[in-house]
Each structure stands twice: as C-alpha cells, then as structure tokens.
C-alpha cells in the first residue's frame, strides 16, 4: 500500500504549528504517531495536502505531576503510559488500558493525543479517561481552553477540536482515595483487535457499611462515542454491595448503551456483552472471585 504525495511541514515550535493551521486550515493534518492517520491515507479515506509533524515538539511530551493532578502531554505514547511511575493508584487504570492496545510496535508509535483526536468509539484510552474525569487542554494562537473529555468526544471520528487547534494535553484530577478499578476489553481475539465492547470501572466503597460510595462506569464501542453509563452508576452509588445489585446495574448499562451492528458484531451481541462485562468488571474491581476469562 502506497501513500499519495503530500507536503511535509516540520514546525519548530507550537506557535509555528498554530500559524500553519491558520494558514492551511483543513488542507493540513497534524501527524503524531501516524498509526491511524497513515493507515487512513493509504486506504485513501483521507488525502490531506499537507502534514504537520508534531513529533519533535517537546512541549507536547512528558507526564507531569502537580499537587492534585496529572498532566499528560498529547504525544505521550501508549508504551510511556504503561511504564510511567506516575500512573499509580487510580491513575493506573489508564496504564492498564494502554497495555491492551494493538501490539508492542503500535504502542511504541501511537499516542494518547492521536487516540483521542481520532475519536474512534473503540479508542481504548477513552473509557478509563472518562471514569478518571479527564479534561483536555486545547491550544491555538488564541490561547488554551479546557473542556471535559466527555464534551470533546462528539461522534465517530468527531471531536470538539476547532480547525486552528491542537490537543495539547490531557489533565487528570486526583482519583478518590481508595479507588478500586479495572478495564475489560472484549475483542474477537485476545490481542491485536479493536474492542467489540470495553468497560472501565472505578468505585470507592465504605467497608463498615458495606456500601458503594462513588461508582463510575464507562463503555467503549457501544455508542457513537465512548460513554458513561450514568443510570447504572446511580443504581449502585450509596447502595449495599451485593451480587444481585451488581447484576441489575449491569442490565441497566446494557439498556442505556446504543450499540450498532457492523461487520465485527451485532448490536444484540454487544448489548448482551455489556451486561456480562459490566457485572464482571465491577466484581473484579471489588476483588470478588470471577471465572478466568483471558480478557
């Protein structure tokens, strides 16, 4: 598979990038790891006239810890997430999801910014970031603005990014003390596959009263964007921990998602699997015994 010719722009600063975006508008595309963009260009799904190479820009790299938050540069690769010592406690959910992406080769190229800006409903970093209450910092000549990730992801392949903007970084507030969490991804095979359904869960519990406190659930691949399963969350929050309650919430989650039928799976199958995976994910995060699954 060959690429069609295009012009390669090598900005040396963020200002350069912004100016190029203003000058060329939708004729130019930003290039990060290229694992989505170059495939789409080879398949002739998009044919940008110009690519703006973001890779050398150190302003977009690195994970920085502030007192109560973590700032993750857009160019942070999946392998950097997997290995970062900063991604501890609740934040580790993101590292866990990164290990489930593609192959080592893809994880050495693909970035968190590319994963979010490509805005696939199956993007594996999105459900964990949704339950971690991530915001994204978007940047242009006009300055920075921050919006919740949930508002940024607007549809399949669609985001709140304006033509003159780039995604600069992802900001994570501190997760609640004692967060329990997990990420489950169901594909057609164990690896090298996009999610048919994925579930991220983050909960806190009150051990004395044996109740759930905070419950956050997000689902991938079962709606036009990765989504929070808010009705299921409400059903569990503050209530007694128990198998029956978890099963009922999983059913609610299966009702509130909007899966589609495509070449890879039917809507009915996806809905059924939301039920199975949400139950399993909540139980697993609580340390309940669950059958071995390999996912």
């Amino acid at each position, binding site marked *: *598979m*060959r*690429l*069609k*010719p*295009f*012009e*390669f722009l*090598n900005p040396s600063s963020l200002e350069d990038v912004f100016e190029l975006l203003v000058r060329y508008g939708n004729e130019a595309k930003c*290039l990060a790891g*290229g*694992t989505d963009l*170059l*495939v789409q260009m*080879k*398949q002739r799904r998009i044919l940008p006239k110009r*690519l703006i*190479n973001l*890779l050398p820009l150190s302003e977009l790299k690195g994970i920085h810890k502030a007192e109560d938050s973590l700032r993750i540069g857009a160019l942070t690769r999946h*392998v950097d997430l997997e290995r970062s010592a900063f991604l501890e406690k609740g934040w580790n959910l993101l590292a866990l999801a990164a290990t489930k992406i*593609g*192959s*080592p*080769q*893809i994880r*050495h*190229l693909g970035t968190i910014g590319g994963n979010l800006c490509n805005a696939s409903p199956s993007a594996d970093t999105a459900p964990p970031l949704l339950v971690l209450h991530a915001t994204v910092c978007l940047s242009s000549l006009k300055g920075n603005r921050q919006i919740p990730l949930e508002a940024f992801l607007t549809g399949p392949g669609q985001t709140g990014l304006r033509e003159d903007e780039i995604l600069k970084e992802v900001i994570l507030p501190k997760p609640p003390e004692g967060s329990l969490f997990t990420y489950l991804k169901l594909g057609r095979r*164990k*690896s*090298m596959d996009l999610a048919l359904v994925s579930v991220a869960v983050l909960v806190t519990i009150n051990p004395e009263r044996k109740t759930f406190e905070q419950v956050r659930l997000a689902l991938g691949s079962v709606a036009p964007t990765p989504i929070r399963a808010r009705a299921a969350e409400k059903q569990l929050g503050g209530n007694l921990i128990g198998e029956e309650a978890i099963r009922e919430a999983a059913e609610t989650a299966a009702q509130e998602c909007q899966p589609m039928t495509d070449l890879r799976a039917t809507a009915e199958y996806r809905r059924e699997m939301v039920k199975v995976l949400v139950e399993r994910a909540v139980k697993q995060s609580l340390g309940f015994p669950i059958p071995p699954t390999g996912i």
Partner: protein
Amino acid sequence: MIYPMKLTVNDELIELEVPAHRTLLEVLRNDLGLKGTKEGCGAGECGACTVLLDDEPVNACLILALQADGKRVTTIEGLSKGSNLHAIQEAFIRHGAIQCGFCTPGMILSAKALLERTPNPTEKEVRRSLVGNFCRCTGYQKIVEAILSLAKRGDG
C-alpha cells in the same frame, strides 16, 4: 517535494533525499536495498516490517522516512557480525522456528527488543511481545521455544 534527511542504519550514517510520502519501509527496501525487512499488510497488522527505531520495535510501514530523521534503525541485516549469526538467529535455526521465513526478520527483532528489556521473560511475556508478528507457518510454538532458550535464568 524532496527533503534531505539522515539515518543511522545498522551503525552506518546515511544521508539521503526522500519525498514526504515515502515510508521508512520503502527507504530500507528500495533506496537502501535492505530486503530483509518485509512488507506484508502495509497497515500495522502483521509485523513483517518490524525494525528497531532507537532500539524500540516499530512497524516500518507506518512511519514516514522523514519521521525517522536523525534516528538509529536496526534491521535484520544489522544483527550478524561477519559470518557469525546473532544468538537469536542461531536459536531460531536450532529450534526449527523458521519455515517460509517471511515473518522471521520481524520476529527476531521483536525478540531482540524483548530480551534487551526483559532478559529473563516468562512464556507469557514472550507470547505477549509477539502479538504484533503474525506467522502463517510455524504455529508459534517453536518460535516461543527458541526465544525462551535464550532467557537468562536466575542470577547466572
């Protein structure tokens, strides 16, 4: 438009001029004649094009040559020293881990990247490190055995 760039390929510094749409894989195979690196899918799925970029495994079919400007590339041709094969190449031969050989260069470079970070991998770690390298012949078992035979056990 043609752009100048530099690349250190198997320890040799090379200066060349490429159009923007040329991938690293095309430069290696067509400009430099290093045909050990294979093209299977051209889309990041099969791993036949795996090379090490600054010692990390990547799909050469999904990188523009210009994105590798100034970096170090290791291809399968860079592993042997004269007529002495690399230990991983020897292990693949010894264990019968090669049939048609199309996947082999990529497999060996993925194995090299694994063993450099994790000198004593478990079988699970070996299998996980190869998920991006498809083999349509061997059934993987002998490849896994070949790599495990190189694991540095204990503190020895």
